[in-house]
């Protein structure tokens, strides 16, 4: 069965079983490996994507449920030549150690900044509370999100 949806601004058609979790469809169906699999139980945030602008885990979200909808993965945030301000800020703050959690955190943070352009630290912590990081990079990540917010508002960091 073919499932059609919008991915990172472009239409895609995937010929995969409709019960395929989106995380696997992205990785093995489309070769987009940025969305990471971490638990399969919506408990760690490593596989977060934006579904119609809302951050959701993609490990239990089946392909059938995204038909006709807009999906944005970490690859859709930016590229090395045209980075999202969050990606620039994460590199400037060196916000990450092993980096396995970062894709999901960037997606959650992008959703936050679209909703609240001027978040305080508490708002950032709350928005990222569903994303686990084991290396202890949290404080750098929070600083990077605040820095990206400032740069998106045109405020020098």
């Amino acid at each position, binding site marked *: 069965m073919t499932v059609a949806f919008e991915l990172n601004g472009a239409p895609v058609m995937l010929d995969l079983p409709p019960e395929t979790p989106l995380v696997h469809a992205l990785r093995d169906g489309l070769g987009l*490996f940025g969305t990471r699999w971490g638990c399969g139980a919506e408990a760690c945030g490593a596989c977060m994507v934006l579904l119609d602008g809302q951050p959701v885990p993609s490990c239990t979200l089946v392909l059938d449920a995204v038909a006709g909808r807009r999906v944005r993965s970490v690859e859709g945030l930016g590229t090395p030549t045209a980075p999202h301000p969050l990606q620039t800020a994460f*590199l400037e703050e060196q916000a990450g150690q092993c980096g396995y959690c970062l894709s999901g955190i960037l997606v959650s943070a992008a959703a936050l900044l679209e909703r609240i352009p001027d978040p305080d630290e508490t708002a950032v912590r709350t928005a*990222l509370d569903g994303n686990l990081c084991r*290396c202890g990079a949290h404080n750098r990540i929070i600083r990077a999100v605040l820095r990206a917010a400032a740069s998106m508002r045109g405020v020098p960091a």
Partner: protein
Amino acid sequence: MSSARPAPDAAPPRSADVGPPSAPPRLPGSLEANRRLSQWLRLLPEGRVVVTPGKVEIGQGILTALAQIAADELDVDFARISVEAAATDHSPNEGVTSGSRSVQDSGLAVRHACAAARAIHLGVVAQRSGVPLESLRVEDGTFIGPDGRAVGSYWREAASGLLECDTPHDVAPKPAAARRVAGTAAPRLDLPDKVFGAPRFLHDMRLPGMMFARIIRPPSREARLEALPEAPAGARLVVDGSFLAVVCATEAEAAGAATRVAARARWAERDTLPPAPELADRFRAGPVETTPIADRPGAGAAPARTLRATFFRPYMAHASIGTCCAVARWSEAGLEVWSHSQSIFALRRDLGLALRLPAERIVVHHREGAGCYGHNGADDVALDAALVARATPGRPVRVQWSREDELGWAPFGAANLVTVEAEVAEDGTLLSWTHDIYGNGHLSRPGFSETPSLLAASHLAVPFPAPVALNPAPAGGGGADRNAMPAYRTGGLSVRVHRWLEMPLRTSSFRALGAMANVLAIESVMDELALAAGRDPVAYRLAHLDDPRARAVIEAVVAMAGPPPGGRGEGVGRGLAFARYKGSGAWCAVVAEVEAEERVRVRRLWIAADAGEVVNPEGAAHQIEGGAVQAVSIALKEEVTFDGRGVTSNSWDTYPILRFSEVPAVSVQLLPRPEAPPLGTGECATGPTVAAISNAIHDALGVRVRTLPFTPDNIAQAMG
């Protein structure tokens, strides 16, 4: 500046005046055992340098630090340097990437190797060009004469085979003042891929014809597979005794098939695990192997007071965000494995034992995995993948563990019971210290036992017994006894390890090993002794410390933290703790500020550390902060739970870790010691952070909590 006592894990001196006249001088770090210069770096004609260490990236930033060191010693721009992932068929064997030794072992080797490569090239270029060697300079890889003209380059000599030699010892790396890249905050080489979602992890590797497998673990410890279900459509079962896997064309199919097979397989089960509350008693009851670590009688003065305290640390999980993963391909030539193991050479050996295959027919390539904090399931999953690959020759097989496998079956950090008996004079001066550690060993890595240490080896039809965890030798920093020797001046000193010879749950190395429980015990007791003598805990510690670098980090952290806040005694408190990691590594002092309401929350941490030369200050500070934040998580939340059959904390709900809303503010200060040997930073903050939190809880609530984690239940128990 020198340390107060020699590093116990330093190699014995082999300088000319003590060794036999013919003994070559010792080369730095891992070069001593891997002397071939071409093993360490390659120069490419297109103007690039490839550094080829045996240490591996485990999220600690070692690739970047090694590139910085190479850039300095070669006089080549940082941007020209790349670092190749290690593999057993060509890399120097640098043992295990662990123990905060990456920079010491690999960094010093790369520094010397690059200095040697530069010296060799300088000599050749001088001879060929006729320009006197001392008037040549190197600018970004090009050799320039006194008139400003280029007379040669590394790139032009790339094919000359100049590195095909034993590394000469008589080269001098640059003095600290001449380093331009090492010592600066160079950006992590691996981070851009990770921020843009590029396929950088082993998990993202795909090979032509690759198949995807999942393992169906026994439902409980020592369960035996009795009856197999039919393979689901599109799946194939791979069985060897009680090792059961499904292999499919895609990861999604494999995950689905594994769930269906697990629901239908029949196993013989029985209770094999001890009741958790009895664990501490069983540690003492034995059987144990007792090893004396220190035994020095006191001066015999009668103590005015004796303090006895018992501490307990439960089993702990590595709890990485990415589960363990491996890729294997079986062919007539042998076995090829891609792994995020910390010790690829030892993994090759144990794979050979488990598969009854000569190690020469196995190649293990390192690829990056998720964060690694010790001996996790990376080696185990490599055997899983190899077992499935053996059943599908020619087809590469990828195995990624489920979250339940990761939290339930990977080796755990060992549970330990620590008892301390401290005798003091009337004014609190330490007269004697007696320290006993009970529980499992901290070392089940591959490469140390006669039988393979890999999980599935004990599930095979012809099973190998799982080796009982050992403790690394005290000279290597010890295991259960790591940091059991107080840094404080005392008369009598008795330290013993009582290694439990039963191992109901597999244990191995987890960040800082025994240092976590031992530093907690020592620093809690020191705090208590100070207060009992009516002395300030900081002044009391300083009065027992002769090592100037120890004193310096304590004084620095006290200055950083400043005066305590208001609200003390109303559930807010501060505590300090100090340790020199392994007694030979980095010095670290931590002040923690906590508030205790329904639960304890850590508000702030101040950390001062002395790690000798720091190659990348940003990276080192990040390692220290990361270690400290992980220690907060451990101190407040983490405990592996189990019933008679198996581990019950096998999900993020049942093994919670610290979340963004719970992470304290952290300040880190690294004392500048550019001329002192580098000491590593990954683990130095773990013990002091846990202990500082314990002391802060006492400051806030007036109770000594000696059982980890510091949950409301354990605090209530301590209050009696």
